[in-house]
């Protein structure tokens, strides 16, 4: 039991998880009808990618992999701020957050 429990986890499982998270983010991006939820799916995709970066950083003992994740987080933060501001502006103009209703470029 302990040998089983002290087994090490193959890195491919981490990568699989990352792929799954990414794909779930894509699916959410496709099927969700609320603008904010769509945005959240994008964040999910980013997180999946982050996981794969960290995995590879562990594989190659490369610190730069983790620094890249750090940068991704920063950019995601900036993006979230601006994106949500845009969503608020859109909501002010359209009074709706349904993705299908927001189909004109000109607000």
């Amino acid at each position, binding site marked *: 039991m302990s040998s089983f429990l002290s087994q090490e986890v193959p890195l491919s499982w981490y990568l699989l998880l990352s792929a799954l998270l990414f794909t779930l983010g894509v699916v959410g*991006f*496709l099927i969700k009808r609320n603008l904010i939820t769509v945005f959240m799916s994008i964040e999910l995709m980013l997180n999946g990618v982050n996981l794969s970066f960290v995995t590879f950083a562990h594989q190659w003992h490369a610190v730069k992999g983790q620094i890249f994740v750090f940068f991704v987080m920063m950019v995601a933060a900036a993006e979230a701020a601006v994106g949500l501001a845009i969503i608020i502006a859109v909501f002010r103009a359209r009074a709706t957050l349904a*993705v*299908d209703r*927001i*189909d004109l470029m000109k607000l």
Partner: protein
Amino acid sequence: MTEIMNGSLHLWLIPVLPLAGFLINGLLGKRLPKFLVTAVALLAPLAAFAVVLIAAASTFFPQGFVRAMQGYDICCPDRAPSWTETFGTWINIGALHIDFAFVLDQLSLVMLLVVTGVGFLIHIYSVGYMKEDPGYARYFAYLNLFLFFMTTLVLAGNALVMFIGWEGVGLASYLLIGFWFSKASAVEAGKKAFIVNRIGDVGFLIGMFLLLANFGTLTFTEIATKLGQDPGWTGGVVTVIALCLLLGATGKSAQLPLYIWLPDAMEGPTPVSALIHAATMVTAGVYMIARTHVLFDHSPFALSTVAIVGAVTALFAATIALVQTDIKRVLAYSTISQLGYMFLGCGVAAYSAAIFHLMTHAFFKALLFLAAGSVIHGLGGEQDMRKMGGLRKKMPVTFWTMTVAVIAISGIPPFAGFFSKDAILYAAFQQGSLGKVLYFVGLITAALTAFYMSRLWYLTFTGETRSPDAHPHESPWSMLGPLVILALLSIGGGWISGAWTGVGNFGAFLGPVLGQTATESGGVPFEIILSVVAVIVAVLGWFVAEWLYGQKSEHPAQLAAALPAPYKLLANKYYVDEFYGATVIKPLMAISTYLLGWFVDKAILGGAAWLLGGIATFSGALLQRWQSGNLRSYAAWLAAGAAAVLLFFVLPWSNVWPASFDFIWKVVGH
């Protein structure tokens, strides 16, 4: 054979002066006063004629005209003088070298004298004839344009420059036939003339191409040299070339089967018919055959074809002329018939005789047409001979000049026609058995010629006036002057040969260019017998006409009633036009309308355009739906695109192996 002498003859002036007349009258004619237009128009051919005379005098007759006519070699004993002037290179590609070359030798001199001389007389005549016509300046502009092209044709030193003139005279003919373009029949006639000419020109073009392919040159003298050097050039290719050129000549000179345009061309003004369709343009075919006679000499088959075509056409046209009622139609068919004589002369290698007949024919045919024009003008536009009559007293000058012309064309000595026609018939008789058959055809045609010309004479001038409403009056002297001059030429034009029979000095003059006429066998007495026979036959024709038309007027009607079928056949011109209409024109129209018009134009081309437009519209509509503004569909396509990119990089069937792909593959350890 080129004679280089000091100085230049300025041969280019001969075509350019009429061209200048054309430009001035054509561009400015409407704004100039009438006398100025007339002056410009008359100056052009007169000046050209003067240049021709000066050129001739300095080249050919430095020792005097009389000595030249006595057969002395003209300027240099051993060589045939001909003067070539080149005005620059036209085509210079590889081995092909064609210049703008004008050649003045004896043959072109004779033609030029006829063209510019008779042309000048007809210009004078036109001043009177077209006086009230609103298109006065345009008319003279076209006439000068015609002179420009005709002189180019005559002076040409190679076939391509001749072709310029060839096509150009066809154009001028079209413009002048359809001069009164508000008349539908005139427009149709002009089109018909041009198109039929073009059909013949195909032959000329193919002949030129074959000449280029086989001889590498189009210059007449070079072709003659090449043919003379190699005795192997007989039959075969030479025959084909000659026949192609013959096709071109039949189109221009209105022989079978392309003569149909000439009768219709009578829609144009009468001086035009006189100049173009009697004296000059239609003789271009004969001139061309004479120029390229070396080719024909090397191909007996082609020569026989030329002779047969000429003889058959002569007889054919003469029969049609028997029953025509329009005075100009009679003259038109007469022209075709006489051109047949010229072709017959060429076909028996008697080129000098043919040119001789060309010259005399120019005189009396132009006279005939101009006199007919005077009659028409005097009667206020009437052209139907059945309505004429009794004009003898009312238009005396016209009457006497026309009489001279009728006698000349019938071949009665000592008028001009006798000498030339007799020369041709005599030469024909000597060419073996075919020649004798053609001789008899020519003889019969001579009888018919005398008959129908006399018929015309009787119907027009004698008897009672059949048109009481008209007030026939004599024409002004601007029209009568040329008539008188041409009458004098018709009387004395034949004496230039200096001999009672044969071509005599005329043939000697043209000898260096055209080769000697076939030597006489049988001697002079035999020739005299033949000519007497011809005269008797002509007089017979005159008697028959006198019996039918000179006394009472029921005989012709009885004759026509007695032979209804032949009469109808002749009156309808053997239904040739209808035949062509059914066999050539109808299928062409059908092809144009259905095959080309409907199938190619509408279905294929229209369909292709429609298809292209349809594709653009369709794909546009399709793509338009892609840009819906719908976020989720955009998202979907994004995902699909990302998947495609991934696939492209991962799957091994991609032809392109980018470096990144290799890197990925290396990273994952394959």
